[in-house]
């Protein structure tokens, strides 16, 4: 792939909806609600073919040619067909009755309906710039407060000044927005058109919130893809994107945004040849982009009626990485995108690579942004679990399990895709490796996310590989590497190359307070029999330990006095627990008793005390 090709950050979908192109005998209609294309041949007499992007099997039927079709639509679920042939009548092919539910009397210039949000906008007043929204829900229609669109300059005449072509409605980050394409800025000093965003809430007033600066003039079209506002410019055959969540210039009420990336064309598109592959030997034909026959629908649909295609517009994230050099801003951008995970992980890998290495402050910023998102999810999950566990979920039917989006990059993702690979690379200085690992651990801690032990192991492995034991020692001293049994065992295994690891391990086992058996084992393996016994007595566990185990260890030391001490301790325990110093057969201490007698004589055995 050439550099240039990688640059295109917008593309048309790979599998468009293909339909018979518009011509004098074939009329094409698009229904925004169902996203269906209707190809009506000869007024329907020779066939109507209906296709949508989701349903791959088209619906075909015939109907009588009763004149020119002005509009044709299915109801939701394709149950009822409605055909409009004159300005004032709608025909339903089967006999159905319609019921008037509610009526409003308003002078309307034009209307626009947004199926996603079930909101209709009506253009009112002479200039047409006062918009009245209505919201449909469960058979009711509620009137929302009307608002006025600020026109570029004081209109000279009293004719309609706001065209429906310059208005779009779309849901951006879960909120309904009205987008107004203003061809000339209100301020004379800034040339170029702009898109003004009005936030239209279900309740409350509609407010102007964002202005997207286009810095150019001419013919534009709008799409909304993955919460990004895409503005196509026909004259230059390029498009720009805006992200209203990225930081812009905020003046107290309105945020001013500039394009996230430099303008680029949509990626060149090859029209696949129709028919079976064996028949068509010709190479695919390049598709004319930004053609004047393109019609754009919300949120992400582009139709070429002359070529007979319906595409959805898509954002490609990989090329963004090379265009957006500020890594912090890049992360802010990527974290809001739907399919961001692998791209984010590749950005992380890239900034740690020797050739493209980021500075530590940049790396820290990226980690913080990732962990901020990760923490938000963990918190939501925790709250959800708590509500469910405490039984409050019944009183709160709206409660939903938080959705884990791709923006949640957890420790395991980072470990698998980035850090474990990174630490294996020989050419990277170990100082940098350790700094990066510590930075990631720092960031997790900052967001109070418990660090998984495999990250700690990675740190230890790296330090041990480079003989940086004193560094390791200091990290453990300040509990940067959290206590755990696996970690303590790992330390024990390091004792032969770094003796202090023994002490570090024992300390850790002690702090865990659930590893007393392990402590005894460690001490016995070091022939510290007395220390082991004192430890187990200190925590009050000496009545339950195996005498044989301790006597074995004592015998191995070949220190007779130690053996005597240990033997006597257990005789006293037997006396205390059973009123008799002798060992029971179940304790399997016969050989030790024999050894004791052999070394110290029969008379040295403790006599049972009788009362």
């Amino acid at each position, binding site marked *: 792939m050439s550099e240039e090709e990688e640059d295109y950050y917008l593309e048309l979908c790979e599998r468009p909806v293909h339909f018979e192109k518009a011509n004098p005998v074939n009329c094409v209609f698009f229904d925004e609600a169902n996203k269906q294309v209707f190809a009506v041949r000869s007024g329907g007499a020779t066939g109507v073919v209906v296709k949508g992007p989701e349903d791959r099997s088209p619906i075909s039927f015939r109907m009588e040619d009763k004149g020119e079709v002005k509009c044709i639509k299915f109801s939701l679920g394709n149950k009822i067909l409605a055909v409009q042939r004159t300005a004032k009548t709608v025909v339903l092919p089967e006999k159905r009755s319609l019921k008037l539910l509610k009526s409003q009397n308003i002078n309307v210039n034009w209307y626009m309906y947004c199926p996603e949000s079930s909101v209709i906008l009506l253009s009112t007043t002479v200039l047409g710039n006062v918009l009245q929204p209505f919201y449909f829900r469960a058979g009711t229609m509620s009137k929302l407060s009307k608002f006025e669109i600020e026109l570029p300059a004081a209109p000279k005449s009293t004719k309609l000044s706001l065209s429906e072509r310059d208005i779009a409605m779309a849901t951006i980050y879960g909120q309904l927005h009205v987008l107004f394409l203003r061809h000339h800025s209100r301020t004379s000093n800034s040339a170029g058109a702009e898109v003004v965003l009005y936030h239209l809430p279900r309740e409350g007033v509609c407010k102007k919130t964002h202005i997207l600066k286009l810095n150019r003039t001419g013919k534009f079209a709008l799409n909304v893809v993955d919460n990004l506002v895409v503005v196509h410019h026909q004259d230059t055959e390029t498009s720009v994107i805006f992200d209203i969540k990225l930081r812009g210039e905020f003046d107290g009420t309105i945020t001013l945004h500039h394009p996230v990336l430099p303008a680029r064309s949509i990626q060149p598109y090859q029209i696949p040849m129709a028919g079976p592959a064996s028949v068509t030997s010709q190479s695919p034909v390049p598709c004319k982009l930004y053609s004047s026959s393109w019609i754009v629908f919300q949120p992400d649909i582009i139709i070429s009626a002359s070529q007979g295609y319906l595409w959805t517009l898509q954002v490609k994230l990989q090329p963004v990485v090379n265009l957006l050099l500020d890594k912090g801003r890049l992360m802010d951008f990527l974290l809001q995108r739907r399919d961001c995970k692998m791209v984010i992980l590749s950005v992380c890998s890239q900034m740690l690579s020797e050739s493209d290495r980021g*500075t*530590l*402050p940049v790396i*820290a910023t990226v980690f913080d942004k990732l962990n901020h998102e990760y923490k938000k999810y963990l918190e939501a999950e925790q709250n959800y679990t708590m509500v469910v566990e405490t039984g409050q979920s019944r009183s709160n039917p709206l409660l939903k399990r938080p959705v884990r989006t791709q923006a949640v990059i957890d420790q395991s993702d980072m470990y698998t895709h980035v850090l474990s690979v990174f630490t294996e690379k020989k050419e990277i200085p170990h*100082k940098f490796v*350790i*700094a990066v690992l*510590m*930075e990631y*651990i*720092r960031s997790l*801690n*900052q967001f109070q996310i418990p660090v998984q032990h495999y990250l700690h192991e990675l740190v230890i492995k790296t330090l041990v590989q480079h003989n940086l034991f*004193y*560094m390791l*020692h*200091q990290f453990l*001293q*300040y*509990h*940067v590497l959290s206590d755990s049994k696996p970690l303590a065992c790992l330390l024990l295994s390091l004792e032969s190359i770094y003796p*202090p690891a023994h*002490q*570090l391990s*024992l*300390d850790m*086992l*002690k*702090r865990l307070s659930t590893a007393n058996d392990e*402590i005894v084992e460690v001490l016995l393996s070091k022939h510290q029999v007395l*220390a082991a016994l*004192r*430890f187990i007595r*200190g925590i009050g566990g000496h009545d339950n330990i195996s005498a044989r185990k301790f006597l074995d260890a004592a015998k191995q030391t070949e220190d007779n006095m130690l053996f005597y001490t240990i033997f006597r301790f257990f005789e006293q325990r037997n006396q205390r627990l059973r009123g008799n110093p002798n060992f029971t057969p179940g304790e399997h201490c016969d050989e030790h008793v024999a050894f004791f007698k052999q070394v110290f004589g029969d008379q040295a055995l403790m006599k049972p005390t009788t009362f």
Partner: protein
Amino acid sequence: MAAAGAAQEKQFPPALLSFFIYNPRFGPREGEEEKKILFYHPNEVEKNEKIRNVGLCEAIVQFTRTFSPSKPAKSLHTQKNRQFFNEPEENFWMVMVVRNPMIEKHSKDGKPIVEYQEEELLDKVYSSVLQQCYSMYKLFNGTFLKAMEDGGVKVLKERLEKFFHRYLQTLHLQSCDLLDIFGGISFFPLDKMTYLKIQSFINKMEESLNIVKYTAFLYNDQLIWSGLEQDDMRILYKYLTTSLFPRHIEPELAGRDSPIRAEMPGNLQHYGRFLTGPLNLNDPEAKCRFPKIFVNTDDTYEELHLIVYKAMSAAVCFMIDASMQPSLDFCRRLDSIVGPQLTVLASDICEQYNINKRISGSEKEPQFKFIYFNHMNLAEKSTIHMRKTPSISLTSVHPDLMKILGDINSDFTRMDEDEEIIVKAMSDYWVVGKKSDQRELYVILNQKNANLIEVNEEVKKLCATQFNNIFFLD
């Protein structure tokens, strides 16, 4: 002892009588003995006496080697003084002669009688002091052998003279104790998050200053991070806390620690300043000379510039390769990068430390007087010693008790096993020494009427509160 009697007595603390360094290989033939002597203090001593004293030491070492080839004599006890021998590099001997403490009494006829206290000095304490002399020399000059390679005996003699002439004046033999044996490092207690912030700071500084090889970070004269290996850090820590930092305390107390660059435009207000190197960065003539130190002398033998930079209570040591000469530009850059960040970090640490103190309730005066030392990480903690000054280390207990601590330590050294020693001192104090694996703990209890069991219980209580997060057998 009656008050009247005490008034007539005069006590003399131990004092340095002489200190010399020689190499028997340098003048093996008769008449060439003077060549052996590389350094002799006091220099005024007559030549023949110098030769005699060196010869005596040589003879003692040789003689005792017959009995113990691998461990020749470490010290020689006489009525008036004690001599300590140390061979830090092959055939290079350092000898320190310390006069025993003495009491001058007046007999009935008014004649002064001097009584030497032969048993007062602890071998281990002064042997350690002697070893420290070498370590300190090596830190700033490299090994003896290196000096020989650089320019023969002449250069070595010059270096020894230059270094020890000043250093011996700072020895203060009267206040040496158990802590000199340990040569430990006091670590600053800190929560994980603040510690990680410091890590992050150090890594970022090392990256942006890019010539920094090692960094050490201290707060309140206590260590938080060392990029140097343990042994090198140990001696550097000693230098910083007993020499460099105390020298800068007075200007700080005098309020001269104010942000001197506050008035400079474009510069963030900060409290950073160099403790080594340029005093005034605005002076274009300012000298950027930093002390040189030598580390890892056993293998890689690295020569470094020591840059010590401090903001409020936080001090950071940047060590850069000696082949790089830090310019005034570099110092200004360091100041502008490190200064503001270190100032913020220092106040973060202070704040966090106070919060932690309040939570753990450790702000109350410690009820126990104790010294703790861990051989593994050299961690040292003492509630007996007040802050060290360049001249004296103040202790809050009687020297007799300090001596008992030293004796217990000597006992511990002889034994490999864990053990515990409880001593009832003459002055009604109880002194407890505990050794568990590589750790040693010494406690002084002022409970006149307590019995052995009660003392044991008290120490257990102390361990439970102070050392509950380590494996310390009781």
